[in-house]
């Protein structure tokens, strides 16, 4: 017990002097720092001289008994490992002591071999608990959204919403064009939620064929189908305690939509080919770049599933709507690949940045990352220059020949409608006008849905 560098401590609480004295000497020979208390008031006072790794606590004492004192000591220091000792053992007191958080319960006289192992285990348990707390703390500290880059008001809003919803267990739907970083937002929500010590399980619904998706999500029993040689856990089962991230939710079939709705509501399911009901406690975050309202209108997406999933919606803006973030993102990716490629590239020339700022980024942040990665391959330290870009110039957008304000407004509204697939609500949001005004302007300029 005196093997570690740290001197361990033990407090002995017993009304009998011989017990306090003999145990103090016994532990002292093992290198412990020891102290003793004859009753509850003294023991409570001794807590000021702690922390105590182990407390040996007698149950039968005059005044406040050991069981009552156990609760008080646990309130003061929940980390102290308390071993209850009594000469008058009973099942009731043992059960009560363990329920109230005692590490163990022994009867006096105690077998020295047993006491030695018990104290070693108690200390080991305390060390592990402390390590666990430190690791949790470390995870919490590193779980902030360090990878979400952007200082635009739009991204600040997205981050703000993510942090707010993270504290709840609400189902979240993340919307945004491909490459805007929807999975990163999902991971940020998970990393800042109470479920962060459990896994986030991503499922790309669009990348798995319908026949395999069922097995992927719910798992399968051995022999459920020809190639099912072993029982396999599904993603919902793996997400127990954590979060399941259903990406491209808009692509799943009608049959799977029914299954999904049932599982999300009941939190229970059966593996493919199985008869046993599996329970799983998961949170759902889903993402889509599809216009689900339009999908409901044309009957390809179930309205009940939509409402079940769309409890809290976060829209991630495309990069072209937050160009102010481009320099920061470009520098972030430059530093990332400089480290990966071990290349001392530290700056982006102003000409290059100008090109990056004017480009429309249809592939959003993913495209920007790819462009910077490619440029980093070609770049000659210390700069990324225009010649490292896959495009050296960005064609200027053609403006209307008619330079009147109406003409410019018409072109802009038409462009926004196109970008938002003629979704009136979303376009009105982007333009910061109400839907009625937008309808009036569509009519005024004679714009037609293609």
């Amino acid at each position, binding site marked *: 017990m005196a093997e570690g560098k740290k001197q361990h401590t033990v407090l002995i609480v017993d009304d009998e002097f*011989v017990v306090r004295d003999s145990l103090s000497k016994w532990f002292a020979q093992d290198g412990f720092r020891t102290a003793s208390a004859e009753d509850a008031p003294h023991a409570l006072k001794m807590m000021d001289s702690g922390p105590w790794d182990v407390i040996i606590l007698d149950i039968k004492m005059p005044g406040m008994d050991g069981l009552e004192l156990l609760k008080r000591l646990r309130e003061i220091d929940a980390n102290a490992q308390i071993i209850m000792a009594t000469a008058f053992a009973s099942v009731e007191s043992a059960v009560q002591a363990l329920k109230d958080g005692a590490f163990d319960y022994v009867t006096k*006289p105690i077998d020295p071999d047993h006491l030695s192992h018990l104290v070693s285990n108690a200390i080991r348990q305390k060390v592990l608990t402390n390590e666990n707390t430190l690791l949790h703390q470390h995870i919490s500290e590193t779980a902030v959204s360090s990878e979400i880059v952007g200082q635009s008001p739009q991204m600040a809003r997205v981050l703000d919403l993510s942090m707010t919803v993270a504290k709840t267990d609400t189902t979240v739907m993340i919307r945004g064009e491909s490459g805007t970083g929807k999975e990163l937002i999902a991971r940020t929500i998970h990393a800042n939620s109470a479920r962060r010590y459990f896994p986030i399980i991503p499922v790309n619904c669009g990348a798995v064929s319908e026949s395999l998706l069922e097995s992927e999500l719910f798992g399968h029993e051995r022999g459920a189908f020809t190639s099912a040689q072993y029982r396999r856990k599904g993603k919902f089962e793996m997400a127990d305690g954590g979060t399941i991230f259903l990406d491209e939710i808009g692509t799943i079939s009608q049959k799977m939509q029914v299954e999904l709705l049932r599982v999300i509501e009941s939190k229970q399911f059966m593996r493919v080919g199985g008869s046993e009901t599996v329970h799983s406690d998961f949170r759902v975050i889903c993402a889509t770049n599809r216009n689900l309202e339009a999908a409901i209108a044309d009957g390809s997406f179930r309205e009940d599933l939509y409402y079940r999933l769309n409890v809290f919606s976060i829209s991630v803006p495309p990069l072209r709507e937050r160009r102010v973030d481009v320099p920061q993102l470009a520098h972030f990716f430059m530093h990332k690949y400089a480290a990966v490629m071990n290349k001392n590239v530290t700056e982006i020339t102003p000409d290059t940045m100008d090109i990056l700022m004017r480009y429309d980024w249809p592939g959003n942040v993913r495209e920007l990352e790819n462009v910077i990665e490619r440029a980093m391959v070609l770049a000659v330290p210390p700069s990324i220059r225009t010649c490292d870009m896959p495009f050296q110039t960005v064609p200027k957008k053609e403006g209307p020949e008619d330079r009147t304000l109406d003409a410019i407004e018409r072109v802009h509204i038409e462009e926004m409608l196109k970008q938002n697939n003629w979704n009136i609500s979303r376009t009105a949001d982007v333009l910061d006008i109400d839907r009625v005004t937008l309808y009036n302007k569509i009519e005024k300029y004679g714009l037609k849905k293609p």
Partner: protein
Amino acid sequence: MQSIKLVPVLPVPVDLLRWLAGPLAAEFGLPVHVDAASAFDSDVAYNISRGQSNSTILLTELLRVFPGHDGKLLGITSVDLCIPVLTFVFGEAQLNGAASVASCCRLAEEFYGMAPNEGLFRERMLKEAIHELGHTFGLLHCADFNCTMHSSTSVDDIDVKGGHLCAVCAADVRRSLV
């Protein structure tokens, strides 16, 4: 010059103490005497309900018999020893003090229903004597499995550990004698 006095706490075969004197003198580098004339009975510490003698009371008795003794005292007995809170002890010692006591009761194979093994018994007795005397020189339990000061709460532990003090503990003993 300091010395070690071995005192019979009856009942105990005095021959065992005489045998111990040689190896203990070699281990501690000190003269070891067997004081058979000062033998006293373990009854003084006997607890009838437990059928054992209280080792703490025996330590007190040793100090009473040898008041102001400036060497180390080791009482050896064949009765089973205990302290009130533990079911048994192999021995007890004053940390950095004068008195220590050790029992050979649980060191004999017969105690565990096995055939007698005098060699193993004496080996265990010597380890236990070195261990308790070690505490009187201020030694704590040692992490080294080969050191006699390694903690042992069962006879198997005694068998596993080595029969001599490790270099660090031996140096601590020498330092305490200066």
